């Protein structure tokens, strides 16, 4: 019987996660959003709470919202939730659960000539997501205030393409009142989204690699999260098939639990000796 690859399993999980996280179908029909109590719970992924189907809250939006309030308080609830997902899963969240990551995966499947970011530029651009996290998500919402003492959710307002795609477009399509309020800001956000969509067709997951603050946060946990991968060095023949298969540019044989690894499993599928595997929790060996 033909073996089901990690890639196929992952695609099914991505689809299920996207549907589950955005399960309020009536919202799309009515041009409104879900207002149930489950929205007090943060989902682990970048999924705008103003998406008509969203059943939970976006952790990055919630983080900024609490930080930019009149009384800035350390948002323990959101940080704790993110740390919990981080230590349990690390960037498995990016590879398996994030709807915007999945959309980028699908866009990359479009058969056009693929581009390559020069290695040196790629290395520096990867740090950009940490700048986005510390500057737009944490620092500016706290520091810059309007005359009433409130801050702004800088990342949501000026960058987040998941918000424009998942919330902006469907809500504006179904809600005449909102459509009449469109201005320059929407034009800017739509431009950002279109640029990321075009880039995603040519480059694998450009938003995850260079801009996503949530991916940046989870990357701190990748080295010690409960879900880790391991290479059996004794069986590895150093053919580098894994590194050629890795679209995130991880040096698999050197640093398999790199902050950039989204645990997609492409290296496992590519290894001719089956020497890449999930770590078993008890001994840190094959699982």
């Amino acid at each position, binding site marked *: 019987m033909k073996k089901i690859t990690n890639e196929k399993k992952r695609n099914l999980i991505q689809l299920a996660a996207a549907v589950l996280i955005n399960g309020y179908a009536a919202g799309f029909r009515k041009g409104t959003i879900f207002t149930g109590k489950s929205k007090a719970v943060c989902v682990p992924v970048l999924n705008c709470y103003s998406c008509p189907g969203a059943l939970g809250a976006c952790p990055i939006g*919630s983080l900024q*919202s609490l930080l930019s309030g009149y009384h800035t308080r350390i948002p323990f609830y959101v940080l704790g939730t993110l740390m919990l997902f981080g230590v349990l899963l690390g960037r498995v969240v990016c590879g398996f659960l994030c709807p915007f990551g999945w959309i980028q995966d699908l866009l990359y499947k479009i058969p056009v000539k693929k581009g390559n970011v020069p290695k040196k530029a790629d290395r520096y651009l990867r740090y950009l997501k940490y700048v986005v996290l510390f500057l737009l998500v944490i620092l500016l919402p706290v520091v810059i205030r309007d005359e009433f003492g409130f801050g702004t959710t800088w990342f949501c*307002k000026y960058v987040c393409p998941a918000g424009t795609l998942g919330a902006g477009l469907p809500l504006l399509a179904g809600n005449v009142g909102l459509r009449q309020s469109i201005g320059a800001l929407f034009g800017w956000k739509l431009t950002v989204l279109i640029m990321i969509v075009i880039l995603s067709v040519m480059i694998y997951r450009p938003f995850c690699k260079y801009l996503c603050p949530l991916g940046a946060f989870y990357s701190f946990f990748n080295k010690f999260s409960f879900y880790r991968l391991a290479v059996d060095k004794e069986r590895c023949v150093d053919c580098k098939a894994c590194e050629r298969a890795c679209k995130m540019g991880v040096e698999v044989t050197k640093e398999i639990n790199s902050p950039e690894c989204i645990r997609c499993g492409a290296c496992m599928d590519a290894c001719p000796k089956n020497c890449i595997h999930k770590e078993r929790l008890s001994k840190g060996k094959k699982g």
Partner: protein
Amino acid sequence: MKQKNLWMIRGTVLIASAACIGYGLMREEHLEVLKKAVNICLQCIGIG
């Protein structure tokens, strides 16, 4: 990373995250999240 260190870090972060969630719930931060999430976020959709 040694297995003992690995488990120590995991355990510490797990406890810290549970403590943060618990403390946040005590301060009713989840209600602030709910309040924000049940209203259409005009900034998120690019209106204002």
